[in-house]
């Protein structure tokens, strides 16, 4: 029994080790280097043998992809360095520089590809070509494939294999990039996928020429691919640009953060929310209002932090840093007074100021009496009340209507005249006196 559980544990450890290796960003990037080395060798050989400018230029393009792969490895290495006192959130933002460059290079590649495709299409419309070239003099010359029947299968095979390889490796790069939070890996994966699309279109061109003697078929499709490449390039560029300039997290994410925060018991209001992204880490700075004391606020903090962390993980961020600041309620303070008179059972609220023997001076915070002091009514009560900055004097006279609480707490600032108001209660214990 023991032996069985030990071997099971051993198998789990080996499995974990393999998974760790498989999801290692360097493993992926070395695979990318290997893939592009094979591509460069085959494309350049085939290109020079068949005198194909498409294969030769694509071969050299792949050579630059190898250099890019090494650059991504350097970026990943730097991004993985632990945070220190100079860089408390680490250096993972460096990945967005590489995303920015890859995005830009995809935009250039897409534009070049679109231009080449337009030139290719114009080649089959000689009159239009001539007219366009009269206005746009810098248009490049069209370079058709120089192939024969014996080389077609080889060229189709190389491009098809190359395209398939690009697609598989790009999926692997993107999966690992997302699970490890390496933006540059995802961006490079998108670039690899774009290469694959271009290779597919080049293959279709060869097939078109081989089967129908119609190589022009390649160009409308190539225009479509160029649009896709430009779109991907723009997305990567904008994502990196926003992250580097610490753009707020997407609006829908911020709205969800707001909703989740206000859903936690004890949060009266969300006063301020600032969000941005460092690498794949979401950073949220929240200022919250609460009426609760320190012991309870500890649990409010826990609730907000935990629930936002869970949500941001669901939203695709590798981790999050939540900074919470709590502010108490802004208290509005003012002063009121109760006219008090002696009854058989003790003090009660007097029917009017004249009948009062005492004045209860009450400090009010947001409509609630927090401090009350009983004073003997002076001979001149009005100046005394004014000196005490009392806004309202409460009395309890029969047959009158007491105003609503909302009216009572709506103090007009700077108002000096003392208003006489009917009290709801007669008994002082109901006021806390």
């Amino acid at each position, binding site marked *: 029994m023991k032996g069985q559980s030990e071997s099971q544990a051993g198998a789990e450890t080996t499995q974990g080790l393999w998974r760790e290796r498989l999801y290692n960003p360097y493993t992926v990037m070395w695979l990318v280097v290997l893939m592009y080395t094979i591509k460069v060798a085959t494309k350049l050989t085939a290109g020079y043998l068949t005198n194909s400018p498409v294969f030769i230029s694509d071969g050299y393009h792949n050579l630059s992809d190898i250099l890019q792969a090494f650059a991504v490895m350097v970026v990943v290495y730097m991004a993985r360095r632990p945070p220190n006192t100079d860089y408390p959130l680490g250096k993972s933002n460096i990945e967005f520089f590489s995303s920015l460059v890859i995005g830009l290079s995809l935009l250039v590649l897409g534009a070049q590809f679109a231009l080449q495709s337009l030139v290719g299409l114009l080649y089959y419309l000689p009159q239009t070509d001539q007219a366009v070239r009269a206005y746009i003099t810098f248009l490049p010359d069209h370079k058709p494939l120089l192939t024969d029947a014996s080389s077609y299968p080889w060229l189709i095979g190389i491009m098809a294999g190359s395209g398939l390889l690009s697609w598989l490796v790009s999926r692997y790069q993107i999966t690992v990039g997302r699970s490890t939070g390496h933006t540059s890996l995802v961006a490079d994966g998108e670039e690899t996928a774009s290469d694959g699309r271009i290779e597919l279109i080049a293959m279709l061109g060869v097939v078109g020429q081989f089967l129908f003697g119609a190589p022009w078929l390649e160009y409308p499709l190539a225009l479509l691919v160029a649009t896709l490449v430009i779109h991907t390039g723009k997305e990567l560029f904008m994502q990196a640009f926003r992250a580097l300039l610490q753009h707020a997290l997407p609006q829908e994410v911020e709205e969800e953060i707001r909703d989740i925060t206000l859903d936690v*018991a004890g949060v009266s209001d969300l006063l301020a929310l600032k969000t941005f992204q460092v690498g794949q880490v979401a950073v949220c700075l929240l200022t919250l209002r609460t009426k609760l004391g320190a*012991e309870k606020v500890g*649990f409010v903090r826990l609730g907000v932090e935990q629930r936002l962390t869970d949500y941001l993980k669901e939203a695709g961020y590798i981790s999050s840093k939540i900074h919470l600041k709590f502010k108490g309620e802004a208290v509005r303070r003012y002063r009121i007074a109760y006219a008090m008179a002696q009854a058989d059972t003790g003090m009660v609220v007097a029917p009017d100021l004249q009948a009062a023997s005492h004045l209860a001076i009450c400090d009010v*915070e947001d409509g609630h009496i927090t401090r009350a002091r009983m004073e003997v009514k002076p001979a001149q009560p009005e100046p005394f009340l004014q000196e005490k900055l009392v806004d309202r004097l409460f009395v309890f006279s*029969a047959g009158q209507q007491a105003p609503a609480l909302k009216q009572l707490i709506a103090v007009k600032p700077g108002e000096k005249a003392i208003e006489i108001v009917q009290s709801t209660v007669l008994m002082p214990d109901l006021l806390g006196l």
Partner: protein
Amino acid sequence: MNPKQTKLIIGVDYFRNIDRVPNLSFARALMQYLDVELIHVRATAPGADLTHLAEEQATRIRQDVSRLTQIPEDCVVIVPDFPPGALIIDNYPDRNRQNLIWLAPMDERGLTTRLRGAAAEASIMVPFGNGNSCLKALRLAAPIARGSGAALLFYHTTWKIPGLTSLKADDHMCREAIAIRKQLEEEATSLSLPFQTLIETAEDVADGIVQAAVLQRSRLIVMPRSQTVEVGDYCLRVFDKSPVPVITIGKEVSS
């Protein structure tokens, strides 16, 4: 007798305590969930030579409560004291009144005011231990859960059994707690109420309860006061720490 009036009496103290408005808002929300029509407001009546003003004060209080809660004036009952077993909404309960049920709303205005998503995603927590006093809590929590649409959450935290390596908290439960869990779940099933049971091995029982309530989106914690513990009653410790509203059922409240 009003046909909508149930056995439960919901009350608030008309004292100037700083939470009067939240108390009334929560009371109104509870009245809706439990289909209770009357609210009992405790206020001292003037005596001796001022008895003729008692009705005038009562009228003014009724008007005030009605304006704050939108409850009709004739549904506001002024009482000199609460009858045993009444459910009183107050953040400052009188801990010596063991024949009352106290609900501290903290800073909440009701169970559904923060509602986000489906009502059933929120929960009403009934923590349980080794004793059957939690069944008393379930009997109070069940109609509130039904009325508000929230699910019940049975929570238990246990100490780890020394030497037992299992990471599953359930495996560390004692026999009595397992039996209580079964009873709670059977009762919830018989009442056709949705429920979930969460077992943990928290470092501290009160902290575990409050933490779970916050993370599981509980809108209310319902706990009975311990019959035997004199110092450190979990119920009171939860009350002191929780931002989530807490109902504490007094020792002398019969089930």
